[in-house]
């Protein structure tokens, strides 16, 4: 089959995605790399050259702490998001066809909302004056309405809201292909529903789960508006600082250097995750 396919697909077809990748990824990255080592002219943007000043500036406890914060926030968002997405997707895959389509369409429409809209809607929803606090007061749960933003909780909520559709879309195909008899077999052999999920369903979905984790992690690393709108200063991620440098301080070399480092860190995290995924597979 595959041999057959190879003969009917012209080899040059591979050049298209390669070219696309070069134009839209490699070239911009090369420009960013070049800018990151350029010389910063105060107020005048930069002059091309080669110096490591911008990288040197980054190597400080201050930016180290921010990088760590960014990674931790994104990692937490990935774990929370996928933890929510998995049962949701399992539930979704058991709905009837029409229901599934409806839910998927709603999820896709969430994707069309921008970070700005999500951020501002959530900051209103979690506010003291117009938010859920009033609802809790009405329910009698609270004496007086209170605000839930800005806070780590608000930020996580925003990030998970943005990333949940992606995780569901990553998990949906493998979950819907999962043979329901596998879970039933586990039940027949004495496993409670939760045990069956833990020992059979979850391990079988290991690779898609890792894929979803990586996707949400990388996606939320790039989110720069939500931390400003929903987070406190200690939750301002590296992406916020990159925006500050690029837009407000006109320090493109430093912004580019931070972006390069952020990219390297995400690649390292992705690599680590993949390695982890593979090791577990070999051991099981």
């Amino acid at each position, binding site marked *: 089959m595959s041999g057959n396919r190879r003969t009917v697909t012209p080899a040059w077809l591979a050049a298209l995605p390669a070219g696309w990748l070069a134009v839209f990824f490699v070239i911009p990255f090369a420009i960013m790399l070049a800018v990151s080592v350029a010389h910063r002219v105060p107020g005048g943007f930069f002059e091309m050259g080669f110096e490591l000043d911008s990288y040197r500036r980054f190597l400080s406890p201050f930016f180290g702490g921010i990088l760590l914060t960014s990674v931790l926030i994104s990692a937490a968002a990935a774990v929370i998001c996928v933890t929510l997405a998995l049962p949701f997707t399992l539930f979704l895959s058991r709905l009837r066809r029409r229901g599934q389509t409806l839910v998927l369409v709603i999820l896709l429409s969430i994707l069309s909302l921008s970070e700005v809209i999500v951020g501002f809607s959530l900051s209103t929803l979690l506010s003291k004056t117009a938010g859920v606090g009033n609802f809790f007061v009405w329910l009698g749960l609270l004496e007086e309405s209170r605000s839930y933003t800005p806070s780590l909780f608000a930020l996580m909520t925003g990030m998970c809201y943005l990333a949940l559709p992606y995780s569901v879309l990553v998990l949906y195909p493998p979950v819907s292909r999962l*043979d329901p*008899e*596998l879970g*039933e*077999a*586990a*039940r*027949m*052999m*004495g*496993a*409670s529903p939760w*045990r*069956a999920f833990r*020992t*059979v369903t979850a*391990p*079988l979905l*290991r690779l898609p789960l890792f894929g979803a984790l990586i996707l949400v992690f990388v996606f939320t690393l790039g989110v720069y508006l939500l931390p400003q709108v929903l987070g406190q200063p200690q939750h301002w991620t590296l992406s916020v600082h990159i925006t500050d440098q690029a837009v407000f301080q006109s320090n493109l070399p430093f912004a580019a250097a931070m972006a390069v480092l952020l990219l390297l860190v995400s690649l390292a995290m992705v690599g680590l995750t993949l390695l982890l995924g593979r090791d577990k*597979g070999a051991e*099981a």
Partner: protein
Amino acid sequence: MTELSLRGLTKRFGNHTAVDDVTLDVPDGSFICLLGPSGCGKTTLLRLLAGLEEPTAGEVSVAGQDQTNVPPEKREFGMVFQSLALFPHLSVADNVAYPLSIRGRPRAESRKRADELLAQVQLAGMGDRRIHQLSGGQRQRVAIARGLAIEPKVFLLDEPLSALDANLREQMQVELRQLQQRLGVTTVVVTHDQKEALTMADIVIVMDKGRVQQVGAPMEVYRDPANAFVAGFIGTSNLLPCELTDASSLTLSGQRLALDPADRVKCSPGQPAVLSVRPEDTRLGPAGEGLEARVVFIRDLGESTQFVLDHDGTEITALYAPDARSDLKVDDRVGLGFVPGKRVVLPA
């Protein structure tokens, strides 16, 4: 005593009644085949036994204990699924040991038991393989070994051999039957293959449209079908509309046919009836004797020769030993008769 007992078991999906008021008692240690065409409700019935479906009405009990509301993991049954449902992320031995590890048995003990079971199904030494490294027959054996790991009260199998090719299937039928006899576990197999059912079962339960049509030993069901459906579904039967004139004769295509005391009559005179005769119980004589028929087709099957005849627009099949009737050719006129004592008259 793990007698399995069903009382008025019914399952409806919306307007569709998949299993309709099934009442059965299965003796301990017997091998039961649920036989029927696809969609007859046999798989649903099996899933009701397993606890994977909740009955709309009725109850299931084992050894006098009601199991109707017991979840599947508490029933201590073994089950082999149609897809086998082997866990691809576990090794062969870990698959077999899964029910033991769920029950918290020590790892070494589980592994020892898994190896024993694998040896019983001729897979000794294969414990460390991955599922995808096994052939279809080997996977089948793993699924069986896994289903038996906890010495289940009842062993359920859903079309377990359907994925295998014909030769292997026959071999596995024999093996499965031998294994079951050795272990003495009450076993229920769902199949649509009547040969399979006849090969393995102590008791065959023929189902159609959600209802049990007949319960009996294989030869009983074969020789003495309860109705036209069973007669047609089990083996090949020639079914001829007729009229039962009185207790000892019937009218067929205008001819009167005297019945032998050994013939089985399942309906009363005056009722519309069907005469059921197996191809091997059909006799072809010279034209003019018995019913008029014409040879339409001759099929040489090696171990036997099959004659396809046309009698008054009804297709009749006759079976002879090879070369026994080399005198007949297509288009020959023959006289059709039936072996006395092998005839069954059923309600139409």
